[in-house]
């Protein structure tokens, strides 16, 4: 049974007076433990698809062309109908995000950046297990080769180190699904390759389910399967 099942997904953005249909009737699925690459050119709607699967945004209520209602199923549950607070919990517990521009909070050290997800998910209960979470964060950062940078701030790190910190942050709550949006897009080729290796290492050792959005066919080639997007539509393989 697929862990992620997307059907009839449409998304329209309003830009001034006009509306732009970014995703058109997208359907796809991801099996547990599978690594799927969503490949497409800039503006093809791949990041939007990732945001919808990750619960950062909601799809249109109906496909304007077919009239069908969309659904995004995670572990069998349709997340499109979740309340705002349950969607927040879904993002915090079940999904880990890795962004192209790392998106670390500049005021926090890298350990604090990694711990942020645990603090948000567990609230006051975090205090009771703070030592445990801290050890986990340090282990994740150590496994990313950042043991010597734990008390550093993001501004003191290289691009590759920042992205490894972001990967560690995405894994702090042991999510079932890792969503990576152009994880190597802001890095040079060599560093990008190392980051990709790190992601694939995680996948290999933990059997982590992941969806990697990329415009780079070499990156996509490292995945188990490729879903191609063009002008908001899935192109048959």
């Amino acid at each position, binding site marked *: 049974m697929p862990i992620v099942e997307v059907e009839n997904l449409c998304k329209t953005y309003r830009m001034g007076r006009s509306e732009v249909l970014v995703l058109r009737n997208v359907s796809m699925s991801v099996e547990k433990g599978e690594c799927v690459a969503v490949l497409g050119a800039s503006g093809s709607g791949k990041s939007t698809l990732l*945001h919808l699967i*990750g619960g*950062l*945004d909601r799809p249109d209520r109906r496909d304007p062309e077919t009239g069908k209602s969309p659904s995004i199923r995670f572990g069998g549950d349709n997340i499109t109908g979740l309340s*705002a*607070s349950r969607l*927040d*919990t*879904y*993002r*915090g*517990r079940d999904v880990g*995000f890795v*962004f192209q521009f790392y*998106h*670390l*909070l500049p*005021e*926090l050290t890298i350990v*604090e950046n990694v711990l*942020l*997800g645990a*603090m*948000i*998910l*567990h*609230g*006051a209960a*975090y*205090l009771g297990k703070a030592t445990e979470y801290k050890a986990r964060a340090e282990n994740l950062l150590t496994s990313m080769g950042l043991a010597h940078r734990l008390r550093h701030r993001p501004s003191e790190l290289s691009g590759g180190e920042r992205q490894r910190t972001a990967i560690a*942050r995405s894994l702090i709550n042991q999510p079932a699904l890792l969503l990576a949006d152009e994880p190597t897009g802001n890095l040079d080729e060599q560093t990008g390759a190392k980051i990709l290796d790190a992601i694939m290492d995680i996948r290999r050792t933990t059997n982590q389910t992941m969806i990697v959005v990329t415009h780079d066919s070499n990156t996509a080639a490292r995945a188990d399967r490729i879903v191609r997007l063009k002008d908001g539509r899935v192109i048959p393989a």
Partner: protein
Amino acid sequence: MYQFLLTRKYLTSKLMPLLASVAVLLCTAMVLVIWSVMGGFLDMLVRSGRTMTGDVIIAWPNAGFGYYDDLVERLEADELVESAAPVIESFALIGLPDGRQETVMLRGVDGPSYARVTAYTDILWWKKLDRPLPKDKDLLDPRNRPLKTLDWNTLYEQGLALSKMDPRTGEMVAGVVPGIEVSGFNSRTVEGFYNPILVNKRLPDGGYETVDLFMPARGTITVNTIPLDSRGTAVETVSRVLPVVNEFMSGLYDLDNRLVLVRLDMAQEMLKLGTSEKVVDDPSHPDGYKVVGVNPARVTHVLVRGKGDLGKFGAADPLRRRVETIYERFAEAHKGEVPGLAPIIIMTWEDQNRTMIGAVRKETALVLTLFSLVSLVAVILVLTIFWAMISDKTRDIGIMRALGAGKAGIAWVWLMYGLAIGTVGTSLGLVTAWLIVTNINPIHEWMGEAMGISIWNPEVYYFVTIPNQVDPKHALIVAVGGVLSCFVGAFIPAVRAANMQPVKALRFE
């Protein structure tokens, strides 16, 4: 949880919140200083009014009334009354040793009973101190040193009795106890004590000798009174040269500068209020009248002190009603010889100072309102700073939403941040206000010396010193107000942050 972490990080890593904290600091300090000074001024007015008059005053100015001993006895027999004291008040003209003449208020009092009703023993200035004044670190207050010819206990006893022993006859002769500012021969120091001023006295050999003008040592004051008859016509001028036996310092400038205390019997003698013959017209008599009895000695006021603390507003009203009842019975017992209840003036300390207290209360409320409005600047400032910070932190908000933070959680980040700025700014503001208020008199003295600025004029504000106490209740109200203001200032930006679309926030550049 993450709100605490971010609040701490944002608070220590940004300049703008520190500026907001400084704005809150200044606003809270400003409001609390104003409130402390104005509130303290009102409190001093109330206390000083009672210091010299007790809780309830029975007054029949000019003519006065007799049988006051009976009235005092009746009053002191009542369960609500602690003690009562007869007093005479009139204006007088005094001549000072350097030839100056001043118009003053003359108050004739019976020392012991006056001390029971008022704080007379506390305000007598020249007496041995139990301990030096807090700011007199170098023990420069003359009261810390022995006197050359007198001793402090003698001076104190003289002050209480308003009399001085004549060394030639051994008899106690009446003296005066003027306010400390009356003679102009005492110089107030920054530390809060008085030094008798020094003058150069020419010697017969042409040289000079420096002597201090310590009035209780050898000073005299010529007191001139003009007793009036029942129609208000001046009878004659009465002059007495009286030795200064001590001086008092009530802290109320108007009294310290204009009031002179004398012994009750001396005041009665000088104002023709003592025992006199009672006469009626008799054309058959060679003088045109005949003596039919004796008029008792009179006083113009009887001061009453109630049991317990009646210093709160309205607390003396029950005592006033009781005094009215007692006076009614007293007037009934001496019908035709003392004024009835209707014309006699019976008022509480609050009634006596009602105009002044009302004015100061209104002025305090007005000033506080104005400064509280000014403090709204802090709210606007926090709002503006937070609005700008949230624009700056849009992407961070998107990240937190991506990590699972809800709208309420994001709002709390900023509300907690506002509370933190409010707490820090208000706490520092309270400390600043406390430092300013408790040192306001030295600061004011310094401003006067260094810049020639004198804001607190005792002739205008009645008191020699500026009130320098912070009321904890006022401090608490200002603190809560300061923190709440920041919370309110942070509220609108917090709502804005909470309503940001996560995807838009992440794409914000």
